[in-house]
């Protein structure tokens, strides 16, 4: 069957097989920033926003999200114009292999939209289902705390441009999905 989706602000019609999960569908359509580290909705690598809520895309039956608004990592900053959370991850050396990172950044974005000034414990709680084998979580946690500061009013955010957060935790930075290296 076919379903309608708005992916990163672009409406599109995508083909869906009966047992497709959303992660498979997004990846098939070029959104390779959605990563799959488990087959069971536990590692967090496939997190995306579905109608403003964070979901592990691998655990979402694609047929059930007909008409939904999806936001993937591709909607955040670009390499030349990073979102402040992405910027903080880079500056804090919070990225090693990077495989878990898109999902973790999506979760961080949701957290900071709802709780702009989280404690360390709240950050750890928020990313509790984003498994990372490389970092020991220390630097990602520091990066998210710093991102909260960066996104607070008078900080360096102005230079960046990717930070228009509304209460639903989505922004309107358009992005054209996957690009080649």
């Amino acid at each position: 069957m076919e379903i309608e989706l708005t992916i990163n602000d672009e409406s599109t019609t995508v083909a869906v097989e009966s047992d497709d999960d959303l992660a498979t569908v997004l990846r098939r359509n070029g959104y390779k920033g959605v990563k799959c580290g488990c087959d069971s909705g536990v590692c967090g690598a496939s997190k995306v926003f579905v109608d403003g809520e964070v979901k592990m895309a691998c655990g979402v039956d694609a047929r059930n999200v007909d008409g939904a608004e999806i936001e993937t990592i591709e909607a955040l900053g670009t390499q030349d114009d990073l979102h402040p959370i992405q910027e903080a991850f880079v500056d804090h050396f919070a990225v090693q292999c990077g495989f878990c990172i898109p999902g973790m950044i999506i979760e961080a974005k949701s957290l900071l939209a709802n709780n702009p000034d989280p404690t360390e414990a709240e950050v750890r709680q928020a990313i509790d289902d984003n498994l990372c084998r490389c970092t020991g979580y220390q630097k990602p946690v520091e990066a998210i705390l710093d991102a909260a500061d960066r996104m607070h009013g008078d900080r360096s955010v102005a230079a960046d441009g990717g930070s228009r957060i509304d209460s639903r935790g989505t922004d309107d930075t358009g992005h054209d999905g996957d690009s080649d290296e």
Partner: protein
Amino acid sequence: MSDDPNDPQTDGGTASKPTSEEPQEFEEHPLEWDESANNNKAPGERKSVSQPAEKFDDRKLVTGQAKYTADYEERFPDLAHAAVVRSEVPHGRVTAIDTTEAEELDGVYAVLTPWSDDVPDAKYTSAGQSYPEPSPWDMNVLNEHVRYIGDPIAAVAAEDATTAAAAVDTIEVEYEEYDHVVDPEEAFDEDAPQLFADDEVENKIVGHDYDRNRMSNIEGEIGDVDAALERENAHVHETEWETIRQSHAQIEKHTSLAYTDEDDRKVLITSTQVPNHTRRQLAHLFDIPIRDIRVKKPRVGGGFGGKQAMVVEPIPLALSLATDRPVMYEASRDEEFYAMRSRHPMKVRARTAVTDDGTIEAIALYALSNTGAYGSHGMTVAGNVGSKPMPLYSKVPNARFEADIVHTNTPQTGAMRGYGAPQGTLALEGHLDEVARDLDLDPIEFRRQHYMEVGDLDEIAGMMGGEGAERRIRSCGLDECIERGKEAIGWDDLEQPSEPHRHRGIGMALSAQGTGVAGDELGAAQIMMNEDGSFHLQVGGVDIGTGADTAFIQIASEVLGCDEDDIIVKSSDTDNTPFDYGAYASSTTYISGMAVKKAAEDAKERILEWASRMLDEPAENLETRDGEVYSEESGEAVTLEDVGYESVYGHDDREHILGKGTHSTEESPPPFAAQFVDVTVDEQTGEFEVNKLVVAVDCGVAINPGMAEGQVEGANHMSFEMAVSEGITVDEQGRAEVSDFDEYGLPSATETPPIESILIETHEPTGPFGAKSVAEVPTNTVPPALSNAIREAVDVRINEMPVTAEKVKTALDEK
């Protein structure tokens, strides 16, 4: 460690290493090293090395643009997907495979069995090691004789992953079942079911005895341990320790894509730590010339040793040959736990003889290693149980290490970060702590009396490696690691909880590792200068997420005096980059990084030569900095861009400036770590809480301190997991009882205590700009430090990992 008599003694190494006809001991292991030949810039003068240069692929990684193996699928419109049929019995012989239904399924392109033409029947080892491999050739790509629940038997290629999986489900396998054995001690018994007939193994390893399921036995000794143990009035202590079957749990699963390109070459895009070893092993298996295979490593989503092996690559290649299409195989998470690789579970026994005044006269370790169904990395990992931690106490005159490595019908083991050192460190550091407490000695002072110092000739390192493998210690920051670690954990002012049944304690442990495999490594690099003054760096070194490519850029830009952005790095593609042994044994920065340094120096020499002509000044007067070649003497300068254009478009003379560097060495300097664990234990329930981990690491000069800290924290997390999680447990059939992350218990962000990493800078004269390794040594230390902390807090000893509340409670009840 390799028992190969033909091991080439290559040394393209540091030119300053003295050679003479009859080397004196001291000349072979000089204390003074020609430091300036390697490290001609003082730390304060550096522009790139020791600076927090941005990780070069980070922007791609955080925006989701970076390409891992699975992300390449869209480039292949006719890509087929693979799935594998795996043994459901722990031990037996496949007598029949019914593939008819699978073959008739719509969208299935090929079904392969052990008897198919496209499936090689050669024996091999999956271990990605130097040649000849120090692991036995004991397995086939698809196996008729199956030895564990998970052994691959048949493989399918289909138009999509769902169809491939459906086809696998229809395949019927008939077995003749054999008796099986799961417990390593039972397996060692002569009456135990035998996994290998003698003629089922090629490239057998020293000490093998397949009648007893033993793939190897190794032993080494210096001095006379038995005499020391038997000496009158020696305190003899003996303890035994047990470790878990730990999973690498890299978040990116083993993934590999094979195709034939327009030049008829077999190409693998694959998530590997060892592209060159993989190429060689595939050539052997498929009987294809090495030159006709290309192995390309894209971004890798974690390796940790699990990808220092050719685990999945032969399957998509065989299917691709059979179907004449590109084929991708991505293991499932379930397969990751039952059919990929894991850390060797071990029992390690420690014995010491100590005099009244606390002098250790002898140390002996014995390890029984469970290598599972196959022998990959079996002997070498077991060797490191002794050869990595024991040299820490190089002042002890008598030392012995012995290991038996036995097969059981359980999942395959392999290389894993730390590589035997975690098992040995638990035994040694737990044991010494216990001895100190028994003799009423301060555990730190007791250690300090015996551990390495700069200038020591470490003979224990030579114990296993044979003559000439001793090493001179030229950098050692142990004292400072301990002091800074104590301060950070609050060693001297520990507050006890107010409830009387809760007790807080700090435990500590030390660790040493190596940097590369002494005498058995090679890294190579090339640098091409572009006319705009930028450079292409081609390096065999393998970045699996550690930031190695960034460290290479920093090393090259330090030498060339250019911005990091002016260097484009291309790594790990066997067609386009020079040879490298791969990412393992903590060798990348030290070995491949030194090759990069040499290549950059080679290019720089040509640059100075050209600039000398352009400036009309002798090259000795010239230096590079900020994209320029300048002369302090005359104040004149030309830009690297000027040199680039002049060199390729010059009127009279032309040259493409190319630098090359190759590095191999007999050295393997140890990095050091001091671990501190702060724990609170409830003596009523045995429940405990780890409040904080502090680990101080002497890694020489950190090429990129932020990245190095990240390595330390990640390694410590892995070490913490070894101390508190069960790992992959197996049932009485040897079946892995874990099928997903939830069951595995990978510590999450709330389950992981804060980790404070402290880098202690020393200067290793044999490493590029003073660097030695960083990423493995903090993998070794949490299990002993946690055991020691619990002993400190509530006076019970847990010898068996993981430490659990039940075990603590039982020990408290028995007290």
